[in-house]
């Protein structure tokens, strides 16, 4: 087959030259990936010698023997907010409040971080670069690390959870919002500018209608992610139901831990369902 091309002085198509099963390029990529995995395995050296299948089986069974005492106040000092369901509700709202704070900051900043809004003048272009750099740096620090640091700075508790979660989400939402602005159709901006409108009127009339839906969609996506994340924040000093889960496991009360895990699963599944329903209706 290759002669057809060589006889006519044409380059032979790659597809004809290479046998996909023996092509050294493919084989070396696959071989390289396996090598990296093997080296990684040697370095990590997972040690299963301390695993006790019998004990594990017992714990798993206990996880399903739910300790329902955590669902009611246990003494006169405890209120609804000390029960597992109270903490679950508080944790959901922790995620909502953190998202709310991050929206308030990310929304105005996102306009400063959109190339198409800020291009055209050296000063505004510099602001654009700085804002996007801030978004990237803020986003690159993992939520758990931010919450741990917040716990040190402002004290362990829900405040650290809210502030840490909000801080991280300013970076995430800021980037998503900015990219939504950058993705708009520039035609209306040009047309509205041509009517004699000022910069603010152009943004109000031509930009905002185009970004409302992506903004709502991204916000719900992050709200969903934050409510999922909130239960774990208690582990690193961020408050919420995570503290109760942490304590239950430390006290070997696996019945309570199992019930809390179940409540988290139900919450996350419900959140997942609601957010996907809302987002689907927006698109």
């Amino acid at each position: 087959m290759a002669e057809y091309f060589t006889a006519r002085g044409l380059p032979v198509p790659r597809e004809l030259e290479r046998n996909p099963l023996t092509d050294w390029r493919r084989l070396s990529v696959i071989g390289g990936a396996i090598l990296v995995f093997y080296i990684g395995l040697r370095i990590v050296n997972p040690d299963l010698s301390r695993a006790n299948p019998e004990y594990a089986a017992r714990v798993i069974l206990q996880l399903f023997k739910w300790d329902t005492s955590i669902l009611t106040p246990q003494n006169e000092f405890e209120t609804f907010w000390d029960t597992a369901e109270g903490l679950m509700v508080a944790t959901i709202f922790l995620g909502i409040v953190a998202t709310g704070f991050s929206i308030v900051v990310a929304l105005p900043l996102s306009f400063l971080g959109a190339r198409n809004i800020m291009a055209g003048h050296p000063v505004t272009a510099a602001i654009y670069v700085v804002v996007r750099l801030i978004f990237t740096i803020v986003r690159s620090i993992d939520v758990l690390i931010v919450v741990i640091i917040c716990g040190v700075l402002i004290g362990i508790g829900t405040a650290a959870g809210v502030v840490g979660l909000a801080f991280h989400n300013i970076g995430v939402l800021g980037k998503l919002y900015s990219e939504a602005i950058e993705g708009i159709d520039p035609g209306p901006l040009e047309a509205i500018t041509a009517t004699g409108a000022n910069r603010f009127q152009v943004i109000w009339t031509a930009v905002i209608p185009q970004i409302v839906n992506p903004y709502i969609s991204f916000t719900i996506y992050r709200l969903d992610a934050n409510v999922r994340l909130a239960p774990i924040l208690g582990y690193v000093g961020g408050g919420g139901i995570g503290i109760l889960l942490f304590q239950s496991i430390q006290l070997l009360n696996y019945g309570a831990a199992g019930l809390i895990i179940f409540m988290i699963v139900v919450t996350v599944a419900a959140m997942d369902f609601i957010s996907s329903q809302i987002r689907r209706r927006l698109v």
Partner: protein
Amino acid sequence: MAPQLQIQDLVKVYPSGTRAVDGVSLDIQRGEFVVLIGLSGSGKSSLLRCINRLVEPTSGRVVFDGADVTRASGPELRRLRRRIGMIFQSFNLVRRTSVLSNTLSGRLGYRSTWRTIASRPSHDDIAAAFENLGRVGIADKAYARADALSGGQQQRVGIARALMQHPDMMLADEPVASLDPATSHSVMKYLEEINKKDGITVICSLHFLSLARRYGTRVIALKGGKVAFDGKPEEIDERRFKEIYGEDAVEVEIGPERSIPQPMSATDAGLKALADDIDTHI
């Protein structure tokens, strides 16, 4: 009489080094219907956008009604812009909002920022919007979403939006390039009407010479950012045509107007019926 628009030695060089407009000087009188022709990339769009400074000219001057547009800053520039309407090849409507609010946005140059956000449009503005939509024959679509309209209808909303500015001049950047021949004529006729009835000067770039001949009172051809021809439409003969479009070019006729019955092939008739249908019923 002093020309309404004076363009003097206008040059636009883009950062990429392209000289889109290369020393254009033109005087345009009030009431003219100027058609800009030329190959893609000959500088028609850049020239039009330099007039209202959607594109910042590199050098040269644009004087509109005695006011130097190129020197105007901030509020002064916006006051000049609102006297110059503009329509676009891709219509440039805010697609998600209603035809009415798109039309009303033509009044933005007359409103304060605060009123844009905080108050509803005035009765006068709404009355004017319906009047202008009525002029282009789509008042019944006022509450439809802009993207629910056909191309021809969207362009008519564009015209209504521009008319809201009470313009003295209308810039049209290939207003019919994305429309079929029958719809093209309907849009061009509205431009002709505002030119003749309201005395609004029109500067319109077009691809088809047949449209230029039919609607223009003056044709300006651009080639490589320079004026290659400036005169009456009927003066463009075969030789001039080749000068403007190159030796290999062959003139293509755009379809006839709807009002003139012409024998058509079966497929042409079918396409035209479809175009009419789309234009009138969607």
